[in-house]
C-alpha cells in the first residue's frame, strides 16, 4: 500500500517535470525565433541598395557596368573590354567597398563582416574578414533578371 502511494507520487512528480519542460521549451523556441528576426538592419539594407548602383571598371560595348549588372555578367563568365574577368572585378570592387565602409578592429564597433552572393546553387562571391560572432546586423537582398535569381547576404559582426 505504502509502495503504491510512493509510486503514484513519483508519477505525479514526473508529470509535473515533463509539463514544465514542455513550457520552458516552448518559451525558448519563441524567444530564439524573435531574436533571429530582430537582427535585420536598416543600415546594412541601405548599404546593399547603395552598392548595387556603384559603377565598376568593367566595360561592355555599351557602358561601364554597375555592380548589379556585373553580378549577372559574372554568372555568365563575361570578360570585360579591358580583358579582366567580370567575377574578378566584382570580387575586388566589393572587397574594396566593404573594407572602406565597415572598418573593423578591436577598438571599433564592427569586429568583422561576411559577404555572400549566390545565384541559384552557385556561389559567385564569398569573403569574410575579422571576427565572426553571434551578435551581428545583416541584410539580405534577392533579385531576379532573365530567369536568374540572385541572393546577396551581408552581415557585420559586433
Amino acid at each position, binding site marked *: 500500500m505504502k509502495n503504491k502511494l510512493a509510486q503514484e507520487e513519483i508519477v505525479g512528480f514526473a508529470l509535473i517535470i515533463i509539463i514544465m519542460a514542455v513550457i520552458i521549451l516552448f518559451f525558448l523556441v519563441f524567444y530564439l525565433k524573435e531574436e533571429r528576426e530582430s537582427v535585420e538592419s536598416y543600415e546594412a539594407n541601405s548599404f546593399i541598395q547603395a552598392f548595387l*548602383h556603384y559603377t565598376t571598371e568593367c566595360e561592355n560595348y555599351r557602358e561601364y557596368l554597375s555592380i548589379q549588372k556585373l553580378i549577372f555578367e559574372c554568372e555568365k563568365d563575361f570578360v570585360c573590354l579591358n580583358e579582366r574577368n567580370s567575377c574578378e572585378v566584382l570580387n575586388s570592387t566589393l572587397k574594396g567597398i566593404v573594407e572602406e565602409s565597415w572598418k573593423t578592429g578591436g577598438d571599433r564597433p564592427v569586429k568583422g563582416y561576411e559577404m555572400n552572393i549566390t545565384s541559384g546553387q552557385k556561389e559567385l562571391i564569398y569573403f569574410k574578414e575579422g571576427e565572426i560572432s553571434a551578435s551581428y546586423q545583416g541584410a539580405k537582398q534577392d533579385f531576379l533578371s532573365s530567369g536568374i535569381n540572385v541572393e546577396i547576404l551581408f552581415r557585420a559582426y559586433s
Partner: protein
Amino acid sequence: MVRNNKAQMKIQQMAFMLIAVTLFFVLAGMFFLRISFSELRSSAELVEEKNALLLVSKLANSPEFSCENAFGGVKINCVDEDKIMALKTNIDKYSGFWGISGIEVRKIYPLDELTECTSSNYPDCNYIRIFSGSSAQSSGVGVSNFVALCRIEGGENLIQEKCELAKIIVYYGGGE
C-alpha cells in the same frame, strides 16, 4: 504525542514546500522580466536607429536629392550629385526648410584625400557640405546612411552615368 509530532512534521514539510515553490516562481519571474526588459531596451534602440535612418533615407529620396528617372529607372537610396551641387549654390532659398542643422555628403569609395567640392573643382572632390547652419562646421547629432552618389559623365564618345558609394550625414539639434 507521536501523532501530533507527525502532524507538525507534515505542516513543516508543507511550509518548506510552499516557500520553495514561491521562491522558484519569484526567481523564474525575475528571469523572464529581465529578458523582457532587455528585449524592450534593444527593440527601443532598434526603433530609434530605424527612425534616424528613415529620416536620412526620406531626405535622400526627396525630390531635391534623389536621382528619380535621370539614370534609367527609379533607384532607391540614390542621390543625384549634379542636383545637390546646384542645391548647394541655391541653399539660401531653403533656409529652415528641413528643420535640421546640417547636411553633408561624403564619398566613401573610392577613398581619396578629403577635398570639399566647390563649383571650380567639381567633380574632382569627395565631400559636399550642402549647408551647416551659421558655422563653418556642422554641429549637433549626426545620423548617416549609405547612398549611391550618381552623376552624368561625358567622355569623348561616351556619355554615361557614374555612381559612387557615399554617406549622407544629417545633423540635427545643433541650433540652426
